[in-house]
């Protein structure tokens, strides 16, 4: 299910991965701090594009997270509560 010009969209790529989703999010972000943040480096740092800025608000979805830790060290405002998912949950690479 490739999109036009043979470019794979990030959602399409993440859909190929195997996840054991936990209902509770392992990463939480502070909406207030993030909305007020003038840099939003998390948007560029996240390889799964879990962070997006829409209608003046930063939104975060943990489902596609690849657990790399980039957002944790890039956030200059301490807005991200970061942990790995509970044991056995989250991304489950079949190739790696």
């Amino acid at each position, binding site marked *: 299910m490739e999109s036009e010009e043979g470019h794979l969209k990030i959602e399409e*790529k993440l859909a190929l991965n195997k996840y054991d989703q936990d209902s509770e999010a392992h990463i939480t972000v502070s909406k207030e701090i993030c909305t007020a943040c003038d840099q939003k480096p998390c948007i560029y740092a996240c*390889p799964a594009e879990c962070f997006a800025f829409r209608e003046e608000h930063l939104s975060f979805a943990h489902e596609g997270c690849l657990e790399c830790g980039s957002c944790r060290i890039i956030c200059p405002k301490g807005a991200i509560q970061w942990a790995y998912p509970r044991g056995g949950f989250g991304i489950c690479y*079949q190739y*790696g």
Partner: protein
Amino acid sequence: MERFDAIVVGGGPAGCASAYVMAKAGLNVLLFERGKFAGAKNMWGGAFFGPQLNELIPEFWKEAPVERFVTRHVLSFMAENGSTSLDFKSTRFCAAPYNGFILLRAKFDGWMAQKVEQAGAIVAAGMRVDDLLFQEGRVSGVKVGDEEFPSDIVILADGVNSLLAKKAGLRSDFLPEDMKQGVKEVIELPRETIEQRFNLVNDEGAAIEFVGTCTRGLPGGGFLYTNKNSLSLGLVIELGSLVKSKLKASDLLEEFKHHPDISRLIEGGRTVEYSAHLIPCSGLAMMPKLATGGALVTGDAAALLLGTGLILEGANFAIASGMAAAQTALEAKEKNDFSAGSLSRYEQLLKESFVLQDLNTFRGAPAFLKNRRIYELYPELAFEIFEAIFQSDGMPRKGTLQVVKEIIKRRTSMISIVSDLWKARKAI
């Protein structure tokens, strides 16, 4: 509650190697891995260098899930309109004990963890270690949820983000400037197609590194490794620069796939997985404290990884550091002394091995590799020079040296090239 001689956190190469050595020597060892199985959380580029593992498990390639043996190394300087490459092949790398092994981590780490179990350790997969136990200021075990697991020593092999080394007071967070972000796709293709496209026979494999436009001039590079029935294609990019340039690795990977050099190599392939991971890249400059009372830190968690620009050696460094940590634990057990002083033996062992010697030899490499001209300028320069040399335009030819001089003058200056070469001489 059962007390363990040693607890290892992390079932990557560092953790598995250390648990294996300790279990073989008769210690009562428990290894925790947060993934559903060892390898479930791990990705990488793809070439493993084998001497340490061969020492641990002789002729490991006969049973380990190896995809291919690296017999061909290509270094390609990628410009906007073409590329200039160095293509190295060795028939010697094609026979035991081989040199590089192309591996996929989800399979390989799983195999290593199996060896750890066979050696007599307990591997507890699907268990995330949340905290450390302390007694009299020393690490005395780990906590998983509310459950406590006491032990004489804890080996931290929990990888680049090691939250536990931080809790042990050994390190602070690594900085984005010291990290590269790796992203990769595994792209399936029939075995025969791979062998034809990459000029390989049987189990031969190719490791290709790209420098230049693939990272839009940011420090880092591209890689392509041939697996049996798939290709591992990806980029590594310095995280700090990536974010400052407001670029996303996911977009650059798509761009890379559409570069004419790459698109023909992956044509007809089907992406089956997309993965990402961080790499600690600043060598000794970012190495944390390695030992404290009751705990040692190994592998990526301690930034023990060598990147010279030409090679990236992480897994073998992780294994060597895991083995050194295990030996330290065995000696400490003998003396029944797990104090920081006793465990400082670990650093001494690393200094005697290639781990800290190589990191010392190449201590200038990380700073040198931040020079943007390597990625922005030189690949284009090489392309222009060779294009001018190979092009026949119906005009009288100039001497080769004259061509080179003119292009250099137009693009940069001789002085800055000499200065970069001078720095390279010391760094790599």
